[in-house]
């Protein structure tokens, strides 16, 4: 009993910091300022810039330091219109704000921007607050990708609402993908492919991480009417049938790319935001190359393993970090692996009850027992872990519980979980290094989310998994 109590207390203190291998700290903000952070940019010399929803850009020094009380702030720019996306290149900060992509320059080197150059404003805005623009870092060719949220998150009142535009360094604005509803962030994986989060709602049964393959349709037909105003994407838009399934419509709609990883609504998240590939090569722990996702409502960070099967991305989402102080919107990673997280609750409340926050997360090097990857195989899944497994439990098929379902693709708001199936693990084989298990699974379903609960698993030293659930979306089976 006492041992149980101790374990319980221990788990409580772990919950307070979110994860035993990570340390979360709040970075002090300039006093008296409303710092509803919508964008973060990593700058040289260990500086970090943030842009607020009120339209100010601030530069922070000391955000990497051991003593965060020494942090200093200076205001760099002002009067921008709700920016969501910022990066630093050469001598400039590039900011995606609601009406345009702007290059901010400090020509007289006094530490304050004096040139606000419009790189592009080739999209429509009507005065509706929901017509947000989310911008990416530059891609391999120097292009920034801009996501244009639907009017009121449902219609397309002005040009190219529901589209992703690629903006070249000289301002050419190329329609790149369509079918977007309400994005929360955009980023690139290590291969350089662009991904964004789209929130549950019209034509989104659940929120998901989607692959912005150039020329692709993402599922919401509201912006299809702009197809005739562009020539970058060939072919014809096809609206999905209402009350259908993604897997059914894929056959009808040539441009349709299915959500890479569904983030089951309620079970994993509600409002996914930032998309950030961990490229720290181990400085942020064992998940290099994986995607970190912000989650606004629950003030959490999730983790995604992606793989490409038959040319289509798919993979698994795991819970990861929690306890942030406001709803997470932007995330960026510093060169030393530090994860910077910004948050705002205005208009959309979150569990972290503060109005806004700026935080950093660093890996403390401590070992912990987590899922590492979940890969699909011809006859099941290969699981890898961050620690060696207890062999007898790992090789018992009864240690794994599975369920699978999908969502209705429809014009209405969201969908219940439907077409439930129960896949069964028939065989589990531990690898020679003791850190991977090959599962044979009967009853997997194409187009379904596959929930794997592994709460019974133990590491060699007797620990249970910090996060016991994985959710794998199967778009494709590996070819036989």
């Amino acid at each position, binding site marked *: 009993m006492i041992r149980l109590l101790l374990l319980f207390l221990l788990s409580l203190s772990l919950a307070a910091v979110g994860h035993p291998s990570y340390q979360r700290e709040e970075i002090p903000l300039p006093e008296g300022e*409303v710092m509803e952070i919508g964008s973060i940019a990593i700058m040289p010399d260990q500086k970090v810039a943030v842009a607020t*929803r*009120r*339209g100010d850009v601030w530069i922070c020094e000391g955000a990497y330091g051991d003593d965060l009380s020494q942090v200093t702030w200076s205001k760099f720019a*002002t*009067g*921008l*219109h*709700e920016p969501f996306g910022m990066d630093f290149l050469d001598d400039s900060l590039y900011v995606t*704000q609601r*009406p*345009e992509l*702007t*290059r901010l320059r400090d*020509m*007289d080197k006094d530490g304050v*921007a*004096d*040139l*606000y*150059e*419009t790189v592009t*404003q080739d999209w429509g*805005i*009507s*005065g*509706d*607050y*929901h017509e947000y623009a989310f911008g990416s870092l530059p891609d391999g060719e120097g292009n920034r990708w801009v996501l244009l949220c639907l009017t009121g998150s449902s219609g397309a009142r002005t040009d190219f609402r529901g589209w992703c535009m690629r903006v070249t360094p000289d*301002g050419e604005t190329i329609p790149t993908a369509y079918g977007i509803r309400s994005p929360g962030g955009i980023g690139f994986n290590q291969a350089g492919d662009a991904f964004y989060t789209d929130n*549950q*709602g019209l034509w989104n*049964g*659940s929120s998901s991480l989607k692959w912005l393959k150039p020329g692709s349709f993402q599922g919401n037909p509201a912006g299809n009417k702009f197809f005739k105003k562009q020539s970058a994407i060939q072919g014809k838009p096809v609206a999905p049938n209402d009350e259908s399934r993604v897997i059914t419509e894929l056959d009808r709609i040539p441009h349709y790319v299915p959500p890479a990883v569904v983030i089951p*609504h*309620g*079970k994993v998240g*509600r409002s996914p935001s930032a998309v950030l590939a961990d490229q720290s090569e181990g400085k942020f722990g064992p998940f290099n190359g994986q995607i970190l996702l912000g989650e606004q*409502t*629950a003030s959490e960070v999730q983790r995604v393993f992606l793989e490409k099967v038959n040319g289509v991305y798919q993979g698994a989402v795991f819970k990861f970090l929690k306890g942030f102080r406001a709803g997470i919107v932007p995330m960026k990673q510093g060169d030393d692996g530090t994860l910077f997280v910004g948050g705002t*609750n*205005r*208009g*959309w*409340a*979150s*569990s972290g*009850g503060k109005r806004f926050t700026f935080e950093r997360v660093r890996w403390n090097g401590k070992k912990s027992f987590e899922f590492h990857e979940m890969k699909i195989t011809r006859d099941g899944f290969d699981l890898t872990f961050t620690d060696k497994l207890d062999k007898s439990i790992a090789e018992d098929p009864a240690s794994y519980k599975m369920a699978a379902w999908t969502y209705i693709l*429809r014009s*209405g*708001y*969201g*969908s*219940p979980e439907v077409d439930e199936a129960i896949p069964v693990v028939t065989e589990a084989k531990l690898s020679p290094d003791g850190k991977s298990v090959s599962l044979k699974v009967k009853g997997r379903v194409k187009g379904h989310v596959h929930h794997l609960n592994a709460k019974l698993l133990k590491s060699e030293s007797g620990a249970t998994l910090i996060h016991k659930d994985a959710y794998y979306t199967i778009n494709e089976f590996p070819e036989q």
Partner: protein
Amino acid sequence: MISPTKGLILSVLLAASTVLFADHSLYMQSCGACHGADGKGVEGQFPPLAESEWVEGAPDRLIQIVLKGITGPIQVKGKAYNLAMPPQGMSMKDQQIAKVLSYVRANFGNKETAITTEMVAHARTQTKKRKKPWSAEELTALYPLPGREPMLQNLVSKVYYGKWKSLPDLDKLEPDAVEEEHNGIMSVHRTAKKDHFAMRFSGDFVVKTEGTYRFTLDADDSADLFIAGERIIHLPGKGPMNGSRVIKKEVALKPGRLAFQLDYWEYAGQEGLSVRVEGPGVPKDTFLTPQTKSKKKGRTWESIPIEAKDGKVALYRNFIAGTSARAIGVGYPEGVNLAFSADDFSVGIIWRGKFMDAGRHWTDRGQGFQAPAGKDVALLGQGPAYALLDSPKEKWPKAFQPELEARFLGYRLLDGTGRPEFHYKVSGIRISDTITPQSDAILRLIQPRSEFDSGQSLHMRIAHGAPVKKVAEGTYELGETLTIKVEGAVTTVLPRALIITLTHASPVGITYSWK
């Protein structure tokens, strides 16, 4: 050894706890993330479900919130919240909604009856066509909070169509439509025809406390109000509802359910009915009719003034009323202000005094256009500032002509003052547009930065939308308030527009001054 009885009890207990745990986990999945594992919510963020008046009483209100979502300001347990709960009707089945709401109504200190799957299914059919989330106001109008039952109960409306010259005797007519009005609100706006009709509202007027009650009635056109069979207000004739015909009447009433009847007649044109009740224990601003939006729709945000400081301009990019969505507001320390439209390349609006109140845009989600905070607001018109035309008298285009290849290039903040100098390119010519404020005027310098081709001309509309009058060479009046001076360009005066023609890369000065 476990005795058979004990075993049975144990298994029943186990079964019960499984059910409980299942309900709790459904709650955590559907509600708990925001409203908390203990149903207490997060102060200022997510309202509590624990002992909340919104959970109490008849189930429909609660079911509707889950089905359609709710958005905007809401008072819960005396505290203000302002947020959006997304609709769950499409993502949850009737049975799940019934289960989770029954759980909420039986936990966290709530002691309400369970909600059945059938109740949810019925509620769903009631609002099948509704696509938008509820506002607290709309929802409580239909499903009042406990203790706030309408004063008019069992209300029935009848509609009669026909051409009469005054309020007809409705006892002698057969109604064309009959409806129950559960919200106790008399609306004359839901009829199929908008002219030539009459209505009768009848129901119970519930008096809880003895005392004097005052009824205030206005109508377009006629109305008669009866309490307990007695006509207490008679408003005959045809007339506007502008306050000139209001009738107030005080009556002493005893507790009970009194027969209530209101007869209404609409001839043609506008229609309207307003009945207000004051009396002991009656909440302030109690109306028996829908309230017009303008009356109730106060500001829901705190003022956040933005002004120029320390001799430097204030910049505010947002939706500013009077110009396009891509407005760049500039507040000068000299006490004049403007909004430059990056859509139109024009100064769309100028004003004096205070600059802007950001409260609307910096509170909650920030919907809508905000009017300037100051005074002497002058609109200079919307639409593209530049056009290629054979003559300035030709019809001005509604959007930039594609051949102009108009491109906004941004702005430079000038040393010391931070005044923006706007840059754009039209018809291959790069133009800088510099603005200098004075205490009662705004000076604008249009400077083409590249040479024109021979014969090339570019028309620029510098103001429109109000009568323009030439008062002297190069001096014009726009409407009642502004004088505009032009130097360095040929000017064309149209009845409601002022157009200049650029033919060389030489600067043009424009001065907008208040009279």
